C-alpha cells in the first residue's frame, strides 16, 4: 500500500524508495514509541503487582498518563554533564543505542505483507544490527570519563558478544529445517510445517535466555547493576539522552521478543493453524497483527517476570553460564538437529 503510494508520487525509483523509507520509519517510530511507553507502564505495573503493590495510579485514569508525565519530565530536564566528557562521542552514543535496534525492525514481518523490506538475508541483517548496539554502549561508557560507566560498558561488551554465540548456534539448528535466512519465509515455513518451537524446544529456550542477556535484562543486567555500578554506562546521562538509552533498551527488548516469535512461535500465525479469514484480506492482516502482538506480549511478560524474581548474576558467573552451559548445550543441540534434518530430508 505504502509502496503504491510512493510510486504514485514519483517515477524515479530512488525517490520512490526514499519516500517509502521515510513513511515506514515514521510509522515504526511512532508505533514503537507508543509500544515502549505502554511497555514501561506495564513493567511498572507488573513489578508492582509482583511485589504486592499497586503501581502508578495517580496520573490520569488508572495512572495511564504516568508515562506521558514522565516523558515530559525527562525531556524538560536540565542536561547536567561534567566538563571532562568527550562531547561528540557523548552525544553520539544514545543515538546509536536507539538507531541500531530500531533499524533492525525493518525486516521483521509483523503480519502477512506488513513488513518494510523482505531481505533474503534478514536474519544476518538483524544480528549485525544488534551487535552494533554494543558500540553505542561502549562509546557511552568511554566518553563519560567515569569509572563506573567504563566498568559498565566493558561488562556490556563482554556480555553481549558472548551471548551472541549461543543465540546464533541455537538458531542454526532451526535453520537446518527452514533453510532460509529470510524472516518472512521462516514464518511461511512454519505455516506448512507447524511452529518451530515444537521441533526445537531446546533451541527456543537457549535463544530466549540469550536474547534476554543480549538486551541486558535481569538477571543479566550487570551492565547497569544499580546496586554496584550506580547506573552503569549511563551514569553520566540525564534528561533526554538518558531517555534515549531507556527507549533503546526497550526497543531492543521488543526486537528480541519479536525475533523469538517470528523464528520459533510462528510469527503472525494463529495456533493450531486456526484460520478464520481468507489469506490476503485486510481482516487476515489485522488478525495476524493481533496474534503477533499477543505472542510478543507474552514473551515480554516473561522477561519482566524474570526480572522481578531473580537476583543478578556476577560477571564471571555470567560468562561461565554462557560458555559452559549455553554454548555446549546449543552445540549438541545443533548436532542433533542437523542429523535429524539430514535424515528427514535424505
Amino acid at each position, binding site marked *: 500500500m505504502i509502496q503504491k503510494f510512493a510510486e504514485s508520487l514519483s517515477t524515479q525509483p530512488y525517490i520512490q524508495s526514499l519516500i517509502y523509507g521515510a513513511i515506514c520509519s515514521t510509522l515504526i517510530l511512532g508505533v514503537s514509541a507508543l509500544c515502549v511507553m505502554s511497555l514501561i507502564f506495564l513493567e511498572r505495573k*507488573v513489578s508492582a503487582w509482583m511485589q504486592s503493590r499497586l503501581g502508578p495510579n495517580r496520573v490520569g485514569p488508572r495512572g495511564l498518563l504516568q508515562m506521558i508525565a514522565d516523558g515530559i519530565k525527562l525531556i524538560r530536564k536540565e542536561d547536567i554533564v561534567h566538563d571532562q566528557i568527550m562531547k561528540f562521542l557523548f552525544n553520539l552514543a544514545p543515538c546509536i543505542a536507539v538507531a541500531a535496534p530500531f533499524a533492525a525492525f525493518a525486516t521483521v514481518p509483523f503480519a502477512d505483507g506488513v513488513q518494510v523490506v523482505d531481505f533474503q538475508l534478514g536474519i544476518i541483517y538483524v544480528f549485525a544490527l544488534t551487535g552494533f548496539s554494543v558500540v553505542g554502549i561502549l562509546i557511552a561508557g568511554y566518553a563519560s570519563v567515569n569509572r563506573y560507566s567504563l566498568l559498565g560498558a566493558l561488562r556490556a561488551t563482554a556480555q553481549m558478544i558472548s551471548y551472541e554465540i549461543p543465540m546464533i548456534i541455537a538458531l542454526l539448528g532451526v535453520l537446518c529445517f527452514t533453510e532460509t535466512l529470510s524472516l518472512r519465509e521462516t514464518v511461511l515455513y512454519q505455516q506448512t510445517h507447524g511452529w518451530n518451537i515444537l521441533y526445537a524446544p531446546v533451541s527456543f529456550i537457549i535463544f530466549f535466555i540469550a536474547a534476554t542477556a543480549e538486551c541486558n535484562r535481569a538477571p543479566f543486567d550487570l551492565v547497569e547493576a544499580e546496586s554496584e555500578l550506580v547506573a552503569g554506562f549511563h551514569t553520566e546521562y540525564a534528561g533526554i539522552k538518558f531517555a534515549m538509552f531507556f527507549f533503546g533498551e526497550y526497543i531492543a527488548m521488543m526486537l528480541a521478543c519479536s525475533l523469538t516469535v517470528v523464528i520459533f512461535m510462528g510469527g503472525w500465525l494463529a495456533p493450531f493453524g486456526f484460520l478464520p479469514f481468507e489469506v490476503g484480506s485486510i481482516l487476515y492482516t489485522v488478525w495476524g497483527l493481533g496474534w503477533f502482538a499477543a505472542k510478543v506480549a507474552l514473551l515480554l511478560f516473561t522477561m519482566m517476570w524474570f526480572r522481578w524474581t*531473580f537476583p543478578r548474576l556476577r560477571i564471571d558467573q555470567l560468562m561461565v553460564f554462557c560458555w559452559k552451559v549455553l554454548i555446549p548445550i546449543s552445540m549438541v543441540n545443533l548436532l542433533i538437529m542437523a542429523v535429524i534434518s539430514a535424515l528427514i530430508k535424505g
Partner: protein
Amino acid sequence: MEKYFKDIFNGAIALLQGMSITLKTMFGVLAKDEATTVQYPEETLDLDHTFGYVQAQFDDDGYSNCTTCMGCIRACPPGCITLTRGKHPENPKQKIAITYTLDYAKCEFCNLCVEACNDDAIFMAPIHEFPFFDRSKMNVEMVTDMKKGNDLKELSDQEIKDMEAKMKRLF
C-alpha cells in the same frame, strides 16, 4: 556429567518455584485485592494510637493545668520547652503558665516531659499529621492556641475532649 545435568535441572526447578511466588503475589493483588499498599491521603491505616506524636497541653476550664513546676523543662533532653509564669486570674495565689511554647524542630517525642509532669498538664496527643512548611512556625504556642481552639490542625473541642479522656486513662 550426571552432576552437570542434575545441577541444571534442579536449578531450573528452583527458579520456577521462585517464579511461582511472584506470580502468586501478582494474582493475589489482581484477583483478590491483596495489595499491601495503602492509598495514603484517601485511606489511612486504622491505627490504635495509644501514644501519639504531638505533645499538647491540658486545658482545664480555659486555663492551663500547669503549675509551672519546671519539671518538664528539666526532663526535656533537647530543651525545647519554654514557659512564662503568671497568676491565675480568679485565684491569684495559684500560679499557671501563661505561655507554654514547644519547639517541634527540636522535640524528640521521647515522652520524658509527660512522665515528669505530676499535674497532668501535658500529654501526647494521638496525631500523626502535622507537617510544617516553615521553620519559624515550628515554635508552637500551646496554651493560647488551645484556647482559641485552632491548635494542632484545628481539632474540634469534642476531639480534644476525646483525646483527654483517652490520655487520662493511660497515664
